[in-house]
């Protein structure tokens, strides 16, 4: 089997969607030449400028026009390079895309995808490093996808484009160039289905996006150095949330550590933790722990950046703490 990068995998998913459905269009900043991470490579050449639109740096327009296009017959995929840029279009995401179907009594669906890169990568600074999935997940009407590897990235993007509701598709910068085995054929992975990326009996690591990769690294270290068998549940989709897979795993291991790059305070991990406690309170062997960033904007200086944002070693530490509790 061949290996390709996360970015290339998303190109394959987009091209397949565009070949299948002529209403699929791609619009965004700097996509004609391939995008910052190669995630649009070759699309302009194959599909032409009517379907691959280089947009002005007008975030509200990019996402607002996607809403307008989506309710009048197109299936737009809108890209905003860095997730911080969605802040210039929050009205279009939150007040328009998310609410149209409900507010208008089910008259329309809004089939659009918002693609944005998130997470830290080599000192990109406070406005190009953050993770906002908690904002988007909080808002009813949005689906939120955060894949951790190229194979999932391809299948999930294919489903996101085919989905009739607005989907926020978050692609972590640290893993976008990372390669993995990806089937050549066209396939979909349903939204709302977590995967058990590694089986184990001692503790459940609940993660998504880049932290699912760090959780897998941590699980290997835990086994080799501490004889702890960790199970890794990769959520893949935050909304709809596959809480059943989480509860099944935690009911078995009785310990859970939730891992994300975003800030711990008010983060998505709080939702998972709360649901675990609501369903499994009496069965837990230890309190649910969270691994995430402390509450500060992402700093520039490399040691500060590393201090703030967790990787595998922080996951290992948290697991060792929970094993002693």
């Amino acid at each position: 089997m061949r290996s390709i990068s996360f970015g290339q995998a998303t190109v394959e998913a987009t091209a397949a969607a565009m070949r299948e459905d002529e209403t699929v269009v791609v619009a965004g900043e700097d996509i004609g030449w391939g995008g910052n991470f190669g995630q649009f490579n070759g699309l302009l050449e194959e599909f032409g400028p009517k379907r691959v639109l280089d947009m002005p740096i007008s975030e509200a327009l990019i996402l607002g026009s996607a809403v307008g296009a989506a309710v009048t017959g197109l299936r737009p995929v809108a890209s905003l390079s860095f997730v911080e840029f969605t802040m210039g279009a929050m009205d279009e995401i939150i007040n328009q895309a998310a609410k149209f179907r409900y507010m208008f009594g089910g008259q329309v669906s809004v089939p659009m995808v918002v693609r944005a890169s998130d997470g830290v990568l080599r000192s990109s600074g406070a406005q190009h490093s953050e993770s906002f999935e908690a904002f988007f997940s909080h808002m009813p009407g949005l689906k939120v996808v955060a894949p951790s590897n190229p194979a999932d990235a391809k299948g999930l993007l294919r489903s996101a484009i085919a989905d009739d509701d607005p989907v926020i598709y978050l692609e972590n910068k640290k893993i976008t160039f990372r390669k993995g085995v990806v089937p050549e054929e066209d396939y979909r992975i349903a939204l709302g289905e977590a995967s058990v990326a590694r089986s184990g009996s001692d503790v459940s690591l609940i993660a998504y996006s880049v932290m699912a990769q760090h959780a897998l690294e941590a699980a290997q270290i835990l086994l080799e150095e501490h004889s702890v068998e960790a199970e890794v549940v990769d959520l893949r989709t935050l909304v709809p949330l596959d809480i059943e897979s989480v509860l099944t795993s935690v009911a078995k291991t009785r310990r859970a550590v939730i891992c994300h790059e975003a800030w711990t305070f008010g983060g998505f991990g709080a939702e998972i933790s709360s649901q675990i406690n609501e369903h499994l309170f009496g069965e837990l062997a230890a309190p649910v722990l969270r691994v995430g960033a402390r509450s500060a904007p992402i700093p520039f200086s490399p040691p500060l950046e590393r201090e703030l944002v967790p990787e595998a070693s922080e996951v290992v530490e948290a697991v060792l703490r929970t094993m002693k509790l």
Partner: protein
Amino acid sequence: MAADFNDMETNREAYRKLFLIRAFEEKLEALFAKGKIPGFVHTYIGQEAIAVGVCANLRTDDYVTSTHRGHGHAIAKGIDLNGLMAEVFGKVTGICKGRGGSMHVADFSKGILGANGIVAAGTVIAAGAGLSIQTRQEDQVVICFFGDGGINKGTVHEAMNFCSVKKLPVVFVCENNQYAQFTSRKLTTSVSDLSLRGAAYGMPAVSVDGNDLLKVVEVSKAAIADARAGTGPTLVVADTYRFGGHYVGDPQAYRSKEEVAERRRRDPLLLFEDHLVQQGLADKEALESERESILELVDKAVAFAEQSEYPEVRSVTDYVFTDVTEA
């Protein structure tokens, strides 16, 4: 389709629409005062000639984006009156099944892409509808209604630039009713002639007396024909005046009674009525009879809304997503 105002029936139909908007909203004012409808109501009274004049040139498959002051646009574009009234009451028979309310009425089957509670939000949505038309190679057009309050929003800049670059079939209709909520346009806007804004986008711009129905028809007919022909967007600035407050119940401390009385002398409904009588297109008795039948329609809509049920409370999370009922 482009309306022919040499035709008597076309004139009568325009009059009926003008009066229907007026009668519908005056009824809402009365109902609101009696506490019969929840939420806020923003009326379009005084501005009716703009929606009716522009929409007279549209087909059913053309699109409009609207504002928080959207009943007039919706009625002019052909929304079902009972569904509109029931929506304002929050009933399940409402056009949005009671999920939207006065500020969020929409009828996608009539190309009404929604009244919108966010000022100038419709501009970028209109741009997307225009892009959709161009991509599908259709000859529909989009009318983007917005106000002098909206013209200072960044979305207007982003949308106008893009529509001009791509020559999208969008007509921007800025209804200058002189007040951004409670604040005079004069305190907030860099130019007194709002049509000057068009030049920044290389976009043709034209000003029109928004209280003169036939002038609105004429100006918008040309802009719509250009958009349909693929030559690109136009900015139409229609000068008008909001007869009521920002919302029903607004004490209006920011303007004088004299100013309102002065502007009410140019009531678009009365101006058009005078025109019809003077030109021999209708006599006063005939118009009186039109008004009576419209008042009956409005009363029937109220009865329909009052007799309708509220939505079942267990349906509260219906319509969030297309294919899942709970996140």
